[in-house]
């Protein structure tokens, strides 16, 4: 037995409100994603197990700084760690740091299939990539710039006349900032582009660390082989990110045997170029529909 259809029908607005007000733009989206990615990569708001390795790396980098300042405090004349040596010593640690954060930034999004989620939101693909590049670079600053700045502060404060000492050291500070920033975004871009091709974090880690180590060995081997051809040999550092960084740092801080051979600007140009190329590759890669 069926009752005849009624004519009555009504649709109620169940509370989905349309938002007509002003919207924060892409810049805000980029910054929000960058902030979130940075926190997650370094273990903030995650269980302690995600924090150990970042802590270890920070410890490894800050301990020499603390030791150096400590020694300076007691033996003011003794210059334990000059900036060039410091930067040179931590290159590998910076590489491992990037190998830690870059996969967390992009590989995990791929593994957890978050990309369709992100791209269905008002964040454009380019903004996503920009946010990740920004986040990686900024986060790497914490290991490439901050320790060196603290070292500088320590040196300055412990000098005979702190104010004058710091004023004199401003040149050094400037160089530190240039070096630290360049290193952070250079390594960050390379690591990120490698990590963005895979969804498995471990594979990304392996390729990044290996990439740095093998290119360095290869470049050194080639240098050995071509040491009788200095014109070619002097450019071989380009092949290795770690050697490029050392070249930059030595050039900036005026280490004698380097500054005459390779123009500093060449190293900076190479780093800038690599950052641009990596960024372009990533922009293109993320345009693909999964």
């Amino acid at each position, binding site marked *: 037995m069926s009752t005849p259809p009624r004519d009555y029908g009504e649709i109620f607005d169940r509370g989905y409100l349309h938002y007509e007000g002003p919207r924060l733009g892409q810049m805000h989206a980029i910054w929000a994603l960058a902030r979130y990615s940075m926190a997650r990569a370094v273990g903030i708001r995650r269980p302690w197990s995600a924090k150990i390795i970042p802590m270890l790396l920070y410890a490894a980098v800050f301990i020499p700084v603390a030791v150096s300042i400590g020694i300076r405090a007691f033996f003011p004349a003794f210059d334990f760690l000059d900036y060039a040596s410091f930067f040179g010593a931590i290159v590998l640690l910076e590489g491992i740091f990037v190998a830690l954060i870059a996969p967390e930034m992009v590989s995990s999004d791929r593994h957890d299939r978050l990309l369709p989620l992100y791209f269905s939101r008002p964040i454009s693909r380019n903004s996503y990539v920009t946010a990740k590049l920004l986040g990686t670079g900024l986060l790497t600053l914490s290991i490439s710039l901050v320790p060196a700045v603290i070292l500088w502060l320590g040196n300055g404060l412990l000098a005979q006349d702190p104010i004058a000492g710091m004023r004199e050291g401003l040149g050094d500070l400037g160089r530190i900032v240039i070096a630290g920033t360049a290193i952070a975004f250079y390594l960050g871009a390379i690591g990120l582009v490698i990590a963005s091709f895979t969804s498995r974090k471990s594979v990304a880690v*392996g390729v990044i660390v290996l990439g740095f180590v093998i290119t360095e060995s290869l470049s050194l081997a080639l240098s050995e082989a071509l040491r009788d051809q200095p014109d070619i040999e002097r450019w071989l550092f380009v092949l290795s990110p770690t050697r490029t960084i050392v070249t930059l740092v030595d050039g900036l801080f005026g280490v004698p045997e380097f500054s005459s051979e390779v123009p500093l600007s060449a190293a900076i140009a190479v780093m800038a170029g690599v950052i641009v190329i990596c960024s372009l590759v990533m922009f293109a890669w993320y345009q693909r529909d999964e």
Partner: protein
Amino acid sequence: MDALWRLLPVTMLTVRQFSGGKTARLVLLLSCFPVLFAAIFVIRPWSGDPAEYLADLFRELIVPTLLPIVVLLPATAALGNELEDGTLPYLLMKPVSRARIVLGKYLAIILVTIPALIVGVGLTTVVVSRVPGAEGLWPIFVAMAGAAAVGALLLGALFLLVSLLVPRALLAGMIYVFAWESLLGRFLPGVQAISSREYTLRVFEGLLDGDSAATVAAISTIGVVILVCLVLAIWRLSRMQID
């Protein structure tokens, strides 16, 4: 093929996971990297003796850098992937002893790394032999192959255990290999004693010099460590809890 699955299901599964992913290809590629260095040397030999170069290549590049990475990738992935992907219950909820699971995984690691290492080392030797006047390379190859195999067995067991104990085992392993062994090892002599690199090199030198006593001693120590690692891994697996 079928029979292999029946006999060694855990191993075959793991090998499949390696080949499916990029791991196996990467392992082979990396093992062959020394060939590049050898090629450079052939084109522009910079030190006198090719045999010495080959041995140094092994000591300075392969053992400290290449061997660990090549073994670390599959070793941390064997159980690490299962943990990360959440597929471990399929192995645990079977009437199969935990020992069989761990040993099956270990076998897969060995099958993927040792042949690749031997091929890589072999190709490198072949390339170096192109240098005119290169001789006495065969004993070096044997020593390299033997030491690399032993090193792989050691690191494989070690990192199979570590992957059960620590999250991000691969990263932790990298830090161990690069930061710990290269930085600290240089400054603290004590570190040498517990360094896997040290024992691998002892096996190499022992085989090279024909010093069987030293070789056996090193291999015995390594053997004990491997046993301990595997036993601990089995114990850890049997106590593992999955939410």
